């Protein structure tokens, strides 16, 4: 298993949103991630994206085909 969710990247801008510090961004939902959810994306505190994230569940079938900016499994 990867150390973080393959859908996770960190970026400063997306659309009309911009930040001084790069923030967690979910390439599955194409949106910035809530801070608490970012702990799941990063597999912190015993959380893992494979077991604790319903978004990962819903999108993992796309990993091998179309996830820009994310590694494949």
């Amino acid at each position, binding site marked *: 298993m990867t150390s973080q969710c393959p859908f996770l990247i960190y970026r400063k801008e997306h659309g009309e*949103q911009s*930040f001084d*510090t*790069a923030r967690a961004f979910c390439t599955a939902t194409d949106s910035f991630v809530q*801070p*608490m959810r970012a702990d799941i994306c990063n597999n912190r505190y015993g959380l893992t994206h494979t077991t*604790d*994230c*319903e978004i990962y569940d819903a999108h993992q079938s796309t990993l091998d085909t179309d996830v820009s900016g994310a590694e494949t499994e």
Partner: protein
Amino acid sequence: MTYQSYLDGEPVIITAAVTGGVHGKEANPNLPETPAEIAAAARACEGAGASIVHLHARKENGERAFSTDAFQEVTDAVRSATDNIIIQHSTGGTAAPDELRVEPLLTDPAPEMASLDMGPLNRYGKLTSENTRSLVDRLHEVMLDRNIKPELEVFNGGHLNESLRIIDDLVAPPYINLVFGGGTTTIPHPRNLCTLADTLPPGTEFNILGFGPHQLPMTTQGLLLGGHVRVGLEDNLYYRRGELATSNEQLVKRAVRIATELGRPIATPKQARSILGLK
């Protein structure tokens, strides 16, 4: 605290929950995240009438932080920026290990108050903040040792039962926060607020927290029942439907306006300490 407390014009304590840890600037760019931003927000809220500030700590990118060092940085900044506001640290932390949940209580000096979750709270599709009795007791013991007054977070009616387990160990008066919102919190409805307020242990001071669109109506009803209120961007990102709040101060000012119109004077930090039995 009852309707008679309202009729008697007893002061209302306003708590400002300025940052939280669930959402951040991605949801509202006006939400403070850094220690400097949180301190500035606390100062503005104190000036507007808040007598308690509820604090969480974050990393530079807005993500959650639980370490004593992180809380020390935030609490130091807030203490430097404010005059006399009561500092309340959160001990909440969905999925965070128990060891980390204790850390916000270990700053120097200790916070005057801290939140103490009374039971489970569901998050997202797969998470639950378990808040086991074992953890509650452990956090409470540290609070007793460090002279920190707990605010008992009652997410639903069953958590009132849970609060009875430790009520006799609390320094009077018990301070209970009734939480209204979605999921495992109490369904936001005026009758539910009345029911919970009617079943509080005798001598309790209570606070009302309503999430999102329920912040305004629930806190307003709380004022009429003699309760205290919590507002801020941690719980509610919007001023009204479709309009993001511009600051925590804006939400505090609205609470002050409503309380004043209803005849409840706003408690100063000194009055709040007296009401809550803080030394």
